């Protein structure tokens, strides 16, 4: 629909008293209209994908208690459902929520309609296409195997294009604005845009070898460093900074009072974006990452408390003297809990990055609880608050039922408590059980005993998730009824003086230099980029420049073609969502899994598969622990080998045939990336693969198992049996002790 959105010079008087002298001296105001339609579209998408993402989360949660809910199908196993949940919640629910809030607030803060309605539409539909493509490919098993960056290269390119469209539209709007100063919310939007662009491009560097598959441009430790620089800052610049922008706009709007301290918001913005970018390595404490990088991550994480709490207090103190409104108004209730959850998780985050605390929390459900305080409390509740505030305004009516919104608030809050508290307990229990020794010096508990002990807590967590979801359904119904009652104001009329005429009446005098940045969005963009790039560069340059100095362990060799194929299957099935491949240098981990992991061991791992959560045991030294037949039976029916296991069965691996046709392309891609396969090995690889598979087939046959050698399970067994064995070969040969 095309409506006349912009016109100037239609001489309509403004009724505000302050405007009168301006108008008489410098001419008429511009008449224009805000585009509410695009905001409503993004609002619908936020609510819709929120429900989908939460449903996927609920299914994944239930699968941990009832493994049969995997339905024996590839697409519905935990390893594929979990990435769908995380991607849907982050990029669909929160992503659309960001765009909804930005498109509403940016227009009003700039006193201008969005730069181009066409770009707005391309942005909207492009983003929805990305989400659908992501869901389909993830369920089909196309994944890069890097958390929250699982999408494969064609979708990565599409994300880049659509992100540029968003930026173009945003900067176009900012450049044609009728308000000279950029309010702090816009700073957060600009910082978000530039940083997410940088993170996405750097972490998505990959070499395609087929239409939908690629290998990471980085390997092992370097891949881990880049990935957690990305992963941590996805939390920072996708889940936090844009929402802070929304907080600084919508909280004052909803409370009808200015932000508590604008000075504080300036400090909040610059110190937050400066500090956040350094903190990524705290995801890799005690991992095979250089010690200085780990310390850097810890120091900057701890410092993050200051700006985060400054921001939280700024939000809460905005409501000073208005707490009576909070009691009445569901919108404010949601916002207060959101800001409080922000404060809680930004206090907990730095604590978790202390090495001693991290030793306990890492790889356990504590981390899951922590992120859900942020996701359910901060992002979810702020989204709900904004939706309850926006929809009645745009549809020119009152909210259908305040009572229902209050019910949503309480059910949602209960849901958060029921979700997080059991997982905090579960996390501590996992650590406690897995690290205990008997007086004789042996491990007190088997891994499976810890898994069994988790089941009631996983069940409670599912109930928490269900409550939260019920709340979200209530909201959808409430908003639906509200929309039915009202009529959308697609183009909201507004008026303002154009910038050039404002200048005529402003005093010219000495101005503070900082306004030079504040008024100029491009400078703001460049400075934000400089500030966030410093941290990344200081972390990456040494880690990459000294690549030659990695003490390559002479016995660590590239994967054989069959193992590589098996590794790709391991990645495809999302094994990393439950199994780590990183033994930390702790007594219990070494006793349970074997010698701790070295950086030199994963130099051919593209992507790295160190993992972040141990729902199952670590697999870094799985090779040679069990016979081939054990793995065969275990993958077919896990409980037959591990009584009480909650791992789903993988029957399709026994039916599907290895796609040997792709192997030459895979070898060539690896060679391009620097893996030392001999010249022309791509032609030899298929033959080698068949030979190694025949060997496994023979060993299985000796245990009375008959399977064709070209089935996927054979490749997976080859990979699992290789894991962590190179170092043993070095020790058997009397090699030098590991550094």
């Amino acid at each position, binding site marked *: 629909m095309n409506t006349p959105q912009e016109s100037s010079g239609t001489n309509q008087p*403004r*009724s*505000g008293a302050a405007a009168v002298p301006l108008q008489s001296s410098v001419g008429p105001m511009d008449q224009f209209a*805000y585009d509410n339609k695009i905001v409503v579209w993004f609002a619908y998408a936020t609510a819709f994908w929120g429900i989908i993402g939460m449903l996927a989360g609920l299914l994944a949660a239930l699968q941990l208690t009832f493994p049969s809910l995997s339905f024996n199908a590839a697409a519905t196993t935990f390893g594929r459902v979990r990435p769908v949940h995380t991607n849907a919640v982050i990029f669909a629910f929160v992503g659309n929520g960001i765009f909804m809030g930005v498109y509403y*607030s940016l227009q*009003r*803060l700039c*006193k201008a309609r969005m730069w181009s309605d066409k770009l707005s539409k391309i942005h909207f539909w492009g983003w929805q296409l990305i989400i659908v493509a992501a869901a389909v490919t993830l369920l089909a098993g196309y994944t890069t195997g890097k958390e929250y960056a699982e999408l494969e290269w064609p979708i990565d390119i599409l994300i880049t294009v659509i992100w540029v469209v968003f930026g173009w539209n945003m900067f176009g709007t900012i450049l044609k604005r009728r*308000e000279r*100063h950029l*309010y*702090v*919310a816009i700073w957060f939007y600009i910082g978000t845009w530039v940083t997410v662009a940088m993170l996405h491009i750097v972490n998505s560097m990959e070499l395609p070898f087929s239409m939908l598959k690629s290998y990471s441009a980085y390997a092992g430790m370097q891949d881990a460093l880049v990935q957690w620089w990305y992963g941590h800052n996805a939390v920072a610049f996708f889940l936090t900074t844009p929402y802070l922008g929304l907080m*600084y706009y919508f909280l*004052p*709007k909803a409370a*009808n009072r*200015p932000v508590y*301290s*604008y*000075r504080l918001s*300036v*400090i909040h913005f*610059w*110190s937050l974006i*400066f500090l956040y970018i350094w903190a990524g390595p705290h995801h890799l404490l005690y991992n*095979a*990452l*250089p*010690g*200085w*990088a780990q310390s*850097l991550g810890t*120091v*900057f994480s701890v*410092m993050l408390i200051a700006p985060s709490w400054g921001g939280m207090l700024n939000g809460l103190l905005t409501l000073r003297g208005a707490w009576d409104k909070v009691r009445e108004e569901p919108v404010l209730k949601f916002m207060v809990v959101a800001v409080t959850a922000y404060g809680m998780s930004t206090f907990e985050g730095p604590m978790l990055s202390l090495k001693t605390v991290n030793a306990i929390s890492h790889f356990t459900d504590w981390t899951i609880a922590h992120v859900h305080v942020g996701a359910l409390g901060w992002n979810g509740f702020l989204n709900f608050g904004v939706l309850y505030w926006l929809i009645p*305004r745009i549809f*020119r009516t009152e909210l259908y039922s305040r009572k229902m919104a209050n019910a949503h608030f309480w059910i949602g809050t209960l849901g958060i408590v029921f979700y997080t508290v059991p997982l905090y307990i579960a996390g501590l229990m996992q650590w406690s059980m897995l690290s205990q020794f008997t007086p004789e010096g042996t491990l007190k508990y088997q891994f499976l005993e810890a898994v069994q002990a988790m089941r009631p807590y996983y069940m409670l967590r599912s109930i928490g998730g269900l409550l939260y979801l019920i709340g979200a359904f209530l909201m959808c119904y409430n908003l639906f009824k509200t929309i039915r009652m009202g009529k959308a104001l697609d183009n*909201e009329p*507004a*008026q*303002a003086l154009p910038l050039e005429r404002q200048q005529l009446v402003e005093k010219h005098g000495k101005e*503070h230099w*900082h*306004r030079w940045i504040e008024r100029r969005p491009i400078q703001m963009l460049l400075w934000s980029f400089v*500030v966030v790039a*410093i*941290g990344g560069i*200081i972390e990456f340059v*040494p880690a990459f420049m*000294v690549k030659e*100095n*990695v*003490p390559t362990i002479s016995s660590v060799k590239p994967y054989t073609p069959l193992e590589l194929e098996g590794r790709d299957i391991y990645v495809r099935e999302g094994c990393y969502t439950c199994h780590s491949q990183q033994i930390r*240098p702790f*007594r219990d981990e070494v006793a349970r899994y074997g010698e*701790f992991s*070295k950086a*030199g061991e994963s130099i051919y791992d593209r992507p790295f598969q160190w993992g972040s959560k141990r729902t199952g045991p670590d697999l870094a030294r799985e090779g040679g622990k069990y016979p081939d037949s054990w793995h065969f039976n275990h993958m077919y029916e896990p409980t037959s080998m591990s009584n009480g296991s909650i791992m789903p069965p993988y029957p399709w691996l026994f039916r599907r045939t290895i796609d040997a046709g792709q192997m030459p392309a895979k070898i060539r891609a690896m060679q391009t990336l620097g893996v030392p396969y001999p010249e022309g090995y791509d032609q030899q690889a298929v033959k080698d693969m068949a030979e190694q598979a025949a060997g496994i087939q023979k060993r299985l046959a000796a245990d009375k198992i008959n399977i064709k050698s070209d089935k996927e399970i054979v490749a997976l067994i080859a990979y699992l049996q290789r894991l962590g064995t190179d170092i043993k070969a070095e020790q058997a040969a009397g090699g030098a002790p590991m*550094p």
Partner: protein
Amino acid sequence: MKFRNYLETISGIGILPVISLLIFFLFFSALLVWVVKSRKQHFTDMEQLPLEDGSENLSLSSSES
């Protein structure tokens, strides 16, 4: 069992966190000076921006607050 890794052997790498901290300290000091020296009136104007969006008097409904 001490956890070591290969970058520890590079001389002077320990200075990096100190340099990083210094960069932040300088950055933060400059920021504080900027904020403290700014005029109060400017901040008072800025914080009003969300509350006046140019459509107040043209709204079709009076329920706007």
